[in-house]
């Protein structure tokens, strides 16, 4: 049983994450949590609203990048801070999920880092023991 959810890794100009999970659904969910942990303290995010997401891509790595970029878009445009990600269905090329969180409140949430995008650089999803791990570098 994997207990690790994610860790943040150093990259000179940017920042990376490694997300862990017992299955691909968990990896995607933990990668999303890792993304929001770069932006703010995720324990300060309350579940007030939910938002459905559907992504289509060409392969599982690109699907991960597009999933994270979708969430960055939601933060940038809709000002959503998300902390729980229920991946309903996932294949190598498609994902549907419901995300939970709230709209940013500048009095309550301290924003740590702006994230421009998830990149394809050093992008990796691989088996890790009984589970999986995924590495993503963000441009910040």
């Amino acid at each position, binding site marked *: 049983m994997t207990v690790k959810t994610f860790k943040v890794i150093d*990259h000179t100009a940017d920042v990376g994450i490694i997300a862990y999970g017992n299955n691909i659904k968990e990896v995607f969910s933990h990668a999303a949590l890792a993304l929001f942990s770069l932006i703010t303290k995720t324990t300060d995010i309350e579940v007030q609203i939910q938002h459905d997401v559907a992504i289509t891509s060409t392969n599982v790595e690109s699907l991960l990048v597009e999933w994270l970029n979708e969430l960055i878009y939601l933060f940038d445009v809709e000002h959503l801070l998300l902390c729980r990600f229920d991946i309903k269905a996932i294949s190598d090329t498609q994902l549907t999920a419901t995300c939970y969180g709230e709209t940013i409140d500048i009095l309550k949430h301290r924003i740590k880092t702006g994230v421009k995008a998830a990149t394809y650089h050093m992008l990796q999803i691989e088996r890790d023991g009984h589970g999986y791990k995924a590495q993503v570098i963000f441009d910040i």
Partner: protein
Amino acid sequence: MTQWHGQIVKIDDFHWKIPQDYKSGMRVPGLIYATEEMLEAIRREQALEQVVNVAFLPGILKFSFAMPDIHWGYGFPIGGVAAMDATSGVISPGGVGYDINCGIRLLRTNLVESEVRPKIQQLVDELFRNIPSGLGSEGKMKVSSSEMEKLVAEGSRWAIKHGFGSNEDLDVTEERGCMTEANPDKLSERAIKRGMSQAGTLGSGNHFLEVQMVREIFDPQAASAMGINQIGQILVLIHTGSRGFGHQVCTDALRVMERAVLNYDIKLPDRQLACAPIESREGKDYLETMACAANYAWVNRQCITHWTRESFSRVFGKSHDKLGMKQVYDVAHNIAKAEYHLVEGKRIKVYVHRKGATRAFPPGHKDIPQRYQKIGQPVLIPGDMGRCSFIAVGTQKAMEESFGSTCHGAGRILSRSAAKRSLTGREVLRALHERNITIKTGSISSLAEEASQAYRDVAKVIDVAQQVGISKKVALTIPVAVIKG
């Protein structure tokens, strides 16, 4: 980080070459501008492998270049320059980056240090209040989606039409603040939406507005052409780009390029280098949307220029004209441009990717303003917020050697988290105060990420560019006050 153990050959004290046979698939050698000491630091990360990877791109000419501020990026190294043959080459959004037309604008004033110091806090508060900055900052301008289309098609001209400056500003902006290839029809709805709320904002991260003073003048004739005449003279440096709009344009393009790489059977060592032939539909679409983002960034810097002038005018009780607040120049340092260069004795059209590199056109070049014809194009090189910045000019040597390009800044040496581990925002604040630098920021904790220690000394970077001859120093400036998002 893993040390880079690849093969490198010394050409002279400032030129280092990665031979083309270092890796099968390289189409040209790599060329790095650095001192031996700098090279040792550069080898501590994988930036040089990225120089190698860029050399794989179809149509690349002469070299995969690394400017002396090279550091590890994603896909291209930051400080990377690659020129592609316009007919047989590719265009790579990763060679421009997410912050399309991130760039620098310099304003001069008639003010001197002794006039500004007593009012510095008031000035900084006024600038901070007047210029939207910080994460998720929204503009003061409400731009509708139909207006966005005009804004990105017209660039700086749009801003001038709406009262944010004068035609004189256009004369001293790279491309006169508008890349005419811009085609708003090619933009995604998302890009438009992301751009609507962020026009006219400084942003966060390494973006800033700095009130500076002239510390040293190396070339009085060139300085004078820029309206820089004395030690202690106050200048303003603005560093920002195309914000979320540019990020979305790049994100959208990379999705298309991922597929294009398969369609055109292009073999790449890093997916972030995804590209398409310049002549292909995908290539043209990218160039047309990239131009939209470039124009957006120029509007952004133009609006910030206007609010800077307004703020100075309020604090000093004089019109900005009386304060002599003319724009010196505006350069893009994340961009791809169609240019003509001499390659093996023939003048050909190329697309130059500058990813963290500055155009450095020589005296007499038709694309630089009349007033700089004798001195060459101004090149604006910011350092970190605690040390100094440089004003330089482009040279004939840059034209002959580096496709008219030179460095763009200090170059990061510590990752953001490593910088945060080694010092706190408060310590950085104290260090700045000790150097008599006033700072106003939305986030004190992120200050540590931008501390001097996180960057290479820009003086060493600019000296390499000077020794190589790809740019020539004009003046050195130091910060008086810094505004950060």
